[in-house]
């Protein structure tokens, strides 16, 4: 299209104003609200025992969920792309379910399976294992919601690189493991990394599913997003700063994630 300068400028203005109102202003506001009463106050709220425990619990969630989903994601993408077949097609169709299902429903579903009155409730109660309203349930919820990212990033890359090199390696006598480590993994690594970043962001930020299966006890089952929610639901000016302080912590983590995404997205094939 041969767009006049005026039309171009007005499109640019619309796009930038939209992004300013929706994206940029809100983030600036978080930082502003956090440090409104000085850096010390905000730092104090970030380093309360509850906040530190929430941060470490959030990191623990990501540390368990992301590696599991990465191993599953790479395996599953290989199965869907390379093996095909009917069961693989079913897997392909079902893999997006966690994106569609509301996190609240995820929490409900886990309660119905592992809760006291759930399918395996009696079994776990008899063995003294608590899943719902405890950390294991929250881990399961986190795994559920962050499950599809690696598969969805790796599968298109696998399609793009094709399997000629893998076949060549196999013809030359390489074992499956050798082929995977030396040929397949290096060629899909940027897809894997991008998927890991996206799952980490989701695991750290998840609130809906975790909210249902957490007992919301500070120091035990409160993740950082839950802490933000809890502080924001309380009243009083102190609680507001406290909520924004915890939110800033999350925002800083996500800015790091964003930088990583930007750094890696240029290496990712744009084939979606």
């Amino acid at each position, binding site marked *: *299209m*041969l*767009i006049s300068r005026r039309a171009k400028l007005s*499109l*640019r203005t*619309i*796009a*930038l104003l*939209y*992004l300013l109102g*929706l*994206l*940029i202003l*809100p*983030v600036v506001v*978080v930082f502003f609200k956090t440090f409104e009463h000085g850096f010390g106050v905000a730092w104090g709220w970030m380093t309360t025992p509850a906040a530190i425990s929430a941060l470490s619990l959030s990191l623990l969630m990501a540390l368990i969920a992301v590696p599991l989903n990465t191993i*599953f994601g790479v*395996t*599953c993408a*290989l199965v869907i792309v*390379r*093996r095909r077949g009917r*069961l693989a097609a079913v*897997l392909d169709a*079902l893999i997006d*379910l*966690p*994106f*569609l*299902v*509301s*996190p*609240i*429903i995820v929490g*409900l*579903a886990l*309660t*119905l*399976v592992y809760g006291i009155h*759930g399918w395996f409730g009696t079994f776990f109660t008899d063995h003294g294992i608590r899943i719902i309203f405890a950390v294991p349930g929250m881990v399961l919820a986190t795994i*559920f919601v962050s*499950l599809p990212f690696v598969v969805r990033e790796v599968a*298109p890359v696998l399609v793009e690189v094709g399997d000629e090199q893998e076949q060549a390696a*196999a013809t030359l006598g390489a*074992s*499956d493991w050798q082929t995977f480590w030396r040929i397949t993994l290096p060629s899909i690594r940027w897809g894997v990394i991008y998927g890991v970043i*996206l799952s980490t962001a989701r695991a750290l*930020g998840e*609130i*809906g599913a975790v*909210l*249902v299966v957490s007992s919301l006890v500070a120091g035990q089952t409160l993740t950082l997003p839950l802490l*933000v929610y809890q502080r*924001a*639901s309380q009243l009083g000016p102190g609680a507001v700063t406290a909520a924004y302080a915890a*939110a800033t912590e999350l925002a800083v983590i*996500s800015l790091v994630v964003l930088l990583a*995404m930007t750094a890696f997205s240029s290496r990712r094939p*744009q084939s*979606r």
Partner: protein
Amino acid sequence: MPRVARRRGGLALGLSTLYLSVIVLLPLAAVTVKAVSQSPSDFWHSVTNPLAIRALAISLGAALLSAAVGAVMGTLIAWVLIRDDFPGKRIINALIDLPFALPTVVAALTLLALYGPDSPFGIHLAYTRAVVLVALLFVTLPFVVRSVQPVLLEIDKEVEEAAASLGASNAVIFKRVVLPALRPAILSGAALAFARAVGEVGSLLIIAGKVQIASLVILNDIESDAPHAAASLSLVLIVLSLIVLVLIRRLGGRVAH
């Protein structure tokens, strides 16, 4: 493939299926069983009472609306980011991914600060349907932009120039040349945005207030110990969202994922 590879491929297939079954399918099956293990009239009542109907309408309607607005604005933003040039473009481009990185509860807090009772602009949207829409637009912003960008980059500009030299106006070129090429990408982005929006909770917990979206009604049912009602509404919500999703995908033709 050599025979060994096929056997191990079978193991990989089995393990993937097992993992997906335990983590995702088993819990969802529990919801389904809970929903249908009551009398049909109870099930019918819990999904057709006025509150449930309104919740479903609000959730699906808001998700569809945000996907539609997102499709238009996302395409516009993608166009500006690819075809236009201005200082700071790379930073803006990087910022598009922010909603994927920023935890949704933080997004909610920011929207509350901007459009809540203490709004610096005097805009009071908190606890209304408008703010629900804004929150959904925020969390789904990257989908359409990111799916349209690569296609726009690959489109042959010569076709547009040829059309222009033959006397086609910009409106005609956009409608006949650019839009058909972008349509699959726009719709696949919009489908993802819809799926994300219909299940969105985190950004709405604080700011939705009395706007009863389906997820919050389900949460309320869980907390008031009504698992049958919660499961019924969940099942209907999932089925309806799947139907809408399939319809959106149909509209764009199957898109290679």
